[in-house]
């Protein structure tokens, strides 16, 4: 379902991703962990083309986009957009549209991109708001919502486009500890419903709970991977052990 082959990405002369390979089954939840700056976020951003990889190829549900050059033809832009439609993205800083209400944040893309009639878009939005427990906030602007509420609206917004994969880029890092639970439980519910997910996070307990597979990133490569029990309880590499020791001590 997701096939990533030899993905390479550099900023200026600094190489951030060293030829990543990754295969993921439908319904599988994969969690990426690793020290800051190891390339986890870049990997995620390449998957929905917010970064254009230098080389390699990405296939999501049968659609393949080759890395290498920035799109400049209409056709290449369209291909890029099609890939994005398959992958919903949730950002660390929510990025809700501040000029729109929670409801409008959710309905805008289905109406504009898919041409969904306003009525159906609103029904869909109410259903999704109910799913993330915020039907009462439909007409609030983002500035009147807490961080946790904003992130839940952002998840609903991404789900409204009915993506086949959900990408989460440190979705709770910008939140106060007491607000993280509500976001994590929405994500847990999604995983149980069978959504294919890739999650970048520093929440180790959460990772252990929901991951089908954990990937350990180190300096632009996946150095270790496996089911959570294996990776958390008996890591193979010294670096993985050291990282886990540090984050467990901290939390």
């Amino acid at each position, binding site marked *: 379902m997701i096939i990533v082959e030899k993905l390479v990405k550099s900023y200026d002369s600094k190489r951030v991703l060293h030829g990543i390979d990754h295969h993921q089954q439908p319904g599988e939840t994969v969690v990426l962990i690793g020290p800051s700056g190891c390339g986890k976020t870049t990997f995620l951003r390449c998957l929905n083309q917010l970064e254009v990889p230098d080389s390699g190829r990405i296939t999501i549900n049968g659609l393949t986009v080759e890395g290498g050059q920035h799109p400049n033809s209409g056709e290449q*832009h369209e291909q890029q957009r099609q890939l994005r439609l398959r992958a919903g993205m949730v950002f660390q800083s929510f990025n809700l549209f501040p*000029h729109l209400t929670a409801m409008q944040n959710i309905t805008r893309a289905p109406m*504009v991109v898919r041409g969904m009639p306003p009525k159906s878009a609103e029904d869909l939005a109410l259903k999704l708001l109910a799913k993330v427990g915020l039907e009462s906030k439909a007409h609030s602007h983002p500035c009147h919502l807490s961080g946790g509420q904003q992130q839940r609206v952002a998840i609903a917004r991404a789900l409204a486009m009915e993506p086949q994969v959900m990408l989460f880029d440190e979705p709770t890092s910008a939140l106060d500890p007491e607000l993280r639970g509500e976001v994590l439980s929405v994500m847990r519910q999604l995983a149980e419903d069978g959504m294919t997910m890739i999650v970048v996070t520093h929440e180790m307990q959460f990772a252990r709970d929901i991951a089908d597979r954990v990937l350990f990133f180190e300096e632009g490569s996946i150095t270790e991977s496996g089911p959570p029990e294996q990776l958390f309880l008996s890591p193979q590499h010294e670096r993985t052990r050291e990282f886990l020791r540090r984050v467990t001590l901290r939390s």
Partner: protein
Amino acid sequence: MFALRPPSLTGYRVIYFLLVSVAVLGGWPDCAFAGDHLKKIRKRGVLLWGADAEGGAPYVYPDPQKPEKFIGFEFELAEALAAKLGVKARLVQNQWDQLIPALERGNFDIILNGLERTSDNQQRIAMSQPYFVYAQQIVTREATRGITRLEELGGKRVGVLSSTAAQRLLEEKGGVELKIYPGNVESLRDLKAGRIEAVLLDLPIAQYYAKDDPALKFAGAPFAPGYYAIGVRREDLMLLAAINEAIKDLDNNGMLERIYRKYGVWDERQALLKNYQPDVIMHRKSVSALREWPKFLPLLLRGAATTVELSVLAMALAMVAGLFIVLVRLYAIVPLQWLAKAYVELVRGTPLLIQLFLIYYGLPQIGIRLNAFVAGILGLGLNYAASEAENYRAGIQAIPRGQTEAALALGMSRWQTLHHVVLPQAVRVVIPPVTNDFIAMFKDSSIVSVITMVELTKVYGMLAASTYDYIGLGLMTAGIYFALSYPSSIFANWLGRKLRYDHR
């Protein structure tokens, strides 16, 4: 004894004392200045004479062969006059229709620049013996038929120089569509461009600028003769007397004729100078525009209507064109981006005045003829478009990158992202600077008077030049500008508040 003294004497003394006090406190500095001003000029060794050398041929103008030197029949007259007074002459450049106020401010000692000896002018300043007899000449295009006399100008578009006898003549006649120009060259150029049907102007100017132009012709004989005289401040009586003496001498010894022949402006009319009898001038009460506001306010408001129309249309053009420019600059292919950037830098780096001249007087030379109103809107609008583009650019770049990324991640195209996410947010950032520009536009729009548009400031200038009430009319005009711009800034504040997300 005491009883014999007239009882009212004390009263006379009090009145006399009061009169002297008033003279000393109020009038004394002027009086002393007046008596001594000729002496002051002689002590200084220089006679400062005010004139407008821009488009000033054949009166006074830069020598085409040696542009750093001035020539002209008035230039040589000034030299001769100064020599008679025993001093050197020095030209002080001043815009023609503002010569009288400048004389009163003391910028120079005399005006010597085709100033007509009319009662209007003598309301304000003293005028010397005439030194030249001018007449009015109608000039048309070579092909024009049927215009040879003043009467035949009715219903035509006719150009005149601002504040001249020609303007007054046509205003008194009525029924003529007047176009008022700040200079002579511009009106003749518009005549050739077909924007007007005729120009009425003083004969010497016509002789220099129009006589040898094959595209133009003198229509009919000169008419309505009048006198040019030198203007001095009312209180400078000694100076006036000395100048009258000098003019008479220069006429009698043939100097005037020599100078005028040299510049081709001598004609039989100049014989009138010899037996000139000064007419008695009735001094009109000076006009107070504030007291007579019902007469002046409607005229100013009509000018204000033009100002509003012009600013609103020009701003609308600027806002639309600015959006187009910024979109090209930020999102088009690279060569077009350069073009947009070059446009912004060029427009911002050159004066609006020059741009207006290029559009109004320059474009006809390559066959594009715009009327003054359209040229004004284009000039102001395209100039402000550059500023609006920069305002928009700042507004767009103030929207966090994450907003664009979120929209793209939802599958929106770049255009949809701009339309639904970036621009609606940028609008809020951009409202204050754009409103500021709009208010500045109200005031900048006065510059279109240089291309013959009569808007608020031009109406003010014309009324003030004829009533001399610069203060009263100035206050009224400023009041109108304020009444126009203040509501705009209130509206902008209200809009800014209304569009804030947390006040909904």
